């Protein structure tokens, strides 16, 4: 039995100033904490109930106005106002409407970096693990506690090691790998645990691919989805942070709860059928399924490379099929600007796409385009629960950007490899 430690054990021991191991519960100091317009108002209430007056360290806090961007109702606009006023009074940075999804902004602003602990009052804070940062979701009361003390309590998770082997073939993406893994583990297969993605396959993945894997680790219940830092991590962070950071890697004899090998080279495009993310099937099981709306965006599939993949397929397949509502939402203004600069947005506009304000968009039904009863959506998002996009009588399929684009071109679910050789 090895005595070595995993990435999760090393980061959380360091942040708690202990020698604690998996299974121990510790009090950790956070490097940063994110609140959103969805979780923030309740956290602000809790903070006041705690007797909170001034937050302990405003520089560690950041709020993003992303779920109601722009606010579709008076009540939603009120949530934004509450957050803005609190942040102004407390000297906390706010990402305004249109700047993007909070998680994406944590990545882009260099707050997530190797060895750091960054919590978010939103479950997809796990995305930061792609940058070798322990990112995890907390509740509103935890965020209030973090505002008061800069600390959270955390149980150090056991780790499942996921060895990625081989290279993805054309038309198959990190999203397909993530779905395949969730299909294998199930919705609670990694509950209370961290995933640690490793091996040469991971090294060949792009930074955007790593964000997808880390982001989707939440959907099998994981507390964190961690990767090693390497030259790609440094390249991504260069110009985004001036803080020094030290990569954290697992010891060679680290103790894992389980080891899973995932061969990327044999992987086909995957789908999650309605209404559970772990209803994963190969694309052949969905071929011919009629779709009414195709959604490209979210903290999973809303980065520049996702839109590049999608537009390539859409153009190769001859454009959007009549009757399909193609809706796209860049994850952030940085993504939006990059897509403007390289002509991708113009390409989507020519394809008849509706282009929404950077942010969460239609992902969870809080703003943006919604669908009618009985309609079917295929989306690059991470969740397809009943009612997720604002209508419990709609069906949501999840797939990669390429597979979603192919569905937009055909009006039915189809295999993007048909047009990518």
């Amino acid at each position, binding site marked *: 039995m090895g005595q070595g430690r995993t990435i999760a054990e090393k980061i959380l021991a360091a942040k708690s100033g202990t020698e604690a191991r998996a299974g121990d519960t510790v009090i950790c100091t956070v490097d940063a904490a994110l609140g959103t317009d969805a979780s923030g108002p309740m956290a602000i209430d809790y903070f006041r109930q705690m*007797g909170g007056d001034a937050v302990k360290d405003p520089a560690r806090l950041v709020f993003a106005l992303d779920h109601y961007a722009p606010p579709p109702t008076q009540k939603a606009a009120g949530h934004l106002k509450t957050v803005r006023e609190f942040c102004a009074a407390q000297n906390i940075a706010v990402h305004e409407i249109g700047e993007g999804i909070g998680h994406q902004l944590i990545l882009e602003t260099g707050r997530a970096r190797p060895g750091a602990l960054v919590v978010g009052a939103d479950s997809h804070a796990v995305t930061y693990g792609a940058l070798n940062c322990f990112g995890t979701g907390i509740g509103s009361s935890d965020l209030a506690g973090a505002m008061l003390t800069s600390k959270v309590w955390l149980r150090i998770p056991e780790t499942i090691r996921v060895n990625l082997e081989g290279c993805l073939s054309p038309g198959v993406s990190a999203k397909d790998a993530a779905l395949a893994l969730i299909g294998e583990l199930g919705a609670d297969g990694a509950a209370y645990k961290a995933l640690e993605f490793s091996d040469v396959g991971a090294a060949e993945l792009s930074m955007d691919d790593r964000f997808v894997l880390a982001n989707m680790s939440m959907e099998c219940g994981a507390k964190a989805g961690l990767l090693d830092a390497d030259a790609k991590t440094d390249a991504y962070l260069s110009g985004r942070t001036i803080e020094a950071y030290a990569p954290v890697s697992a010891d060679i004899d680290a103790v894992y709860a389980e080891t899973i090998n995932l061969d990327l080279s044999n992987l086909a495009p995957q789908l999650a059928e309605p209404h559970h993310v772990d209803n994963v099937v190969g694309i052949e099981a969905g071929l011919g399924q009629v779709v009414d709306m195709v959604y490209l965006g979210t903290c999973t599939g809303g980065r520049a490379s996702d839109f590049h993949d999608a537009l390539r397929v859409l153009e190769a397949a001859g454009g959007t099929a009549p009757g399909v509502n193609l809706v796209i939402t860049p994850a952030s203004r940085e993504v939006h600007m990059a897509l403007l600069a390289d002509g991708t947005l113009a390409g989507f506009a020519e394809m008849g796409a509706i282009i929404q304000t950077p942010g969460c968009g239609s992902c969870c039904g809080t703003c943006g385009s919604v669908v009618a009863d009985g309609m079917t959506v295929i989306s690059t998002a991470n969740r397809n629960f009943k009612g997720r996009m604002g209508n419990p009588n709609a069906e949501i399929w999840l797939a990669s950007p390429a597979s979603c684009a192919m569905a937009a071109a055909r009006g039915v679910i189809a295999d993007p490899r048909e047009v990518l050789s």
Partner: protein
Amino acid sequence: MSTLSTGRARKLGDDIDTDTIIQSQRKRETLDPLVLRNFLLESWDPNFAATVRDGDILVAGKNFGCGSAMEVAVTVVLGAGIRAVVAKSFARTYFRNAINNSLLPVICDTDAISDGADIEVAASTNGLVVIAGGNEIPASPLPDAVRAIVDAGGLVPYLKHHGDFQTLPHPAT
């Protein structure tokens, strides 16, 4: 052995998600637990809320509270007068929110507990036990750090009282 909670078991199944506990559409109107309690678990059983008695204990299968991290899914349970949930496992965000709001989350095998039975959650020297029909079912102990939060009545009163987390001496391993 000291009693932490006694009450009537209300048996539920596996994978009860936060939307089943309280439907999103209900949350649009108000977040007040005393109003929302009227809709507790309505999609599981429309009569559930009307038949809840103060002190009832929810008894579920695996992965209780999966889905959203919304704390309302915890506060609505407390609002209905329920002070403990016994389950084979919890989704981690639900577990956190339960601790932080002083809803006692108890992890044990729940197969042998029948609906309507009078059960007791007790602290023993070895941790927690659930006593049902004369059987003692061992439950996972709560770590000291979080036990202190539950005992204080949740994270709000805990931090209001202490002003900061009380770091416990940690055994070096």
